[in-house]
């Protein structure tokens, strides 16, 4: 079986409040499902890897094949935990080490 290539994304949340990890991921999943449906969303393999509450930075992992889909869905997020918010992609990388080096 062919190995699935992955990409790690560092996301900066801009919102007045700090949502929990669950609330953030719910908003991302809702946006992804709204745009691409349940089948499309299932192909993304989206997983939360890390969460820095202080800097409001979330690290998520997705498959390379659905990177564009995920980026478009992230740009479409306008509400997180009932508050107006936006999600900016700070960096995209193939390894966590390089991603943290980029974001730091």
């Amino acid at each position, binding site marked *: 079986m062919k190995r699935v290539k992955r990409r790690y994304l560092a996301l900066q949340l*801009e919102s007045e409040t700090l949502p929990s990890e669950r609330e953030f991921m719910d908003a991302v999943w809702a946006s992804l499902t*709204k*745009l691409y449906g349940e089948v499309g969303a299932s192909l993304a393999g989206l997983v939360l890897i890390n969460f820095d509450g202080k800097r409001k930075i979330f690290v998520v992992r997705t498959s390379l094949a659905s990177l*564009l*889909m995920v*980026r*478009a869905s*992230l*740009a*479409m997020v*306008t509400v997180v935990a009932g508050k*107006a*918010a*936006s999600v*900016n*992609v700070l960096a995209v990388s193939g390894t966590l080490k390089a991603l943290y080096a980029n974001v730091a």
Partner: protein
Amino acid sequence: MTRPFVDLHLRINTKDQPVTQRLIIKAAQMGYHFISFPFTNVVHETEFVALKAACTQAGIDFVLRADFKPRTQEDLTLFLRKFRRSFEVICIVCDSKEVARQAAKDRRVDLLNFPNLDYHKRFFDRAEAELASCSLAALEVDIKPLLVMEGPARVRLLSCLRREVAIALEFHVPVVVSSGVGEEVLMRLPRDLASLGYLFGLNASEALDAVSTNPAVIVLRNREKLSSRFIAPGISIVKEGKPK
């Protein structure tokens, strides 16, 4: 070399100074090199100078843009004759087929914009694209409706945009993606703005061109034309001699 990112359509109330200031600073932080706020046709010198100064202070280039929604062809030509040399970018919001065709034909028009909510008034078809490809007009797509709409309305808009963008690409009409937003929370990083292009059929490089190269080319071309040294495309005054 980094791409010069451009957002030619930030909607602000220029009289609301604090919000304007915040938007300009945020645009600079996000990595935009050129931004523009549309004016109708009257630009107060003080307003323009204040905006330009705020943009320069933030390290960003301000582009003077006019949006016009003519009712007839005559209105359009009159507007262009009167204001073309006063603005760096001219955008025509096409409300009728007659105006859309004339705007696509006219080489003084830079951007063609269509109403987002009324799908019957989106006249960017193959005939329009053919006319636009012979002139210098580009198709402008605003992202804001995609962010604020939901459900069937958004599906319909996406479907229209996908069709129009496919036609534009077929006829080599440049596509310009702008935000069209007036609130900080709806502003997106240039690359995130480009990623939304994927929703209506732009591939990664075309989407990046739509927020950088395509609008930047329009701005630089018009600045060259408006400079006092411009004679004709490719010909400009390099040095002036003293009369003997």
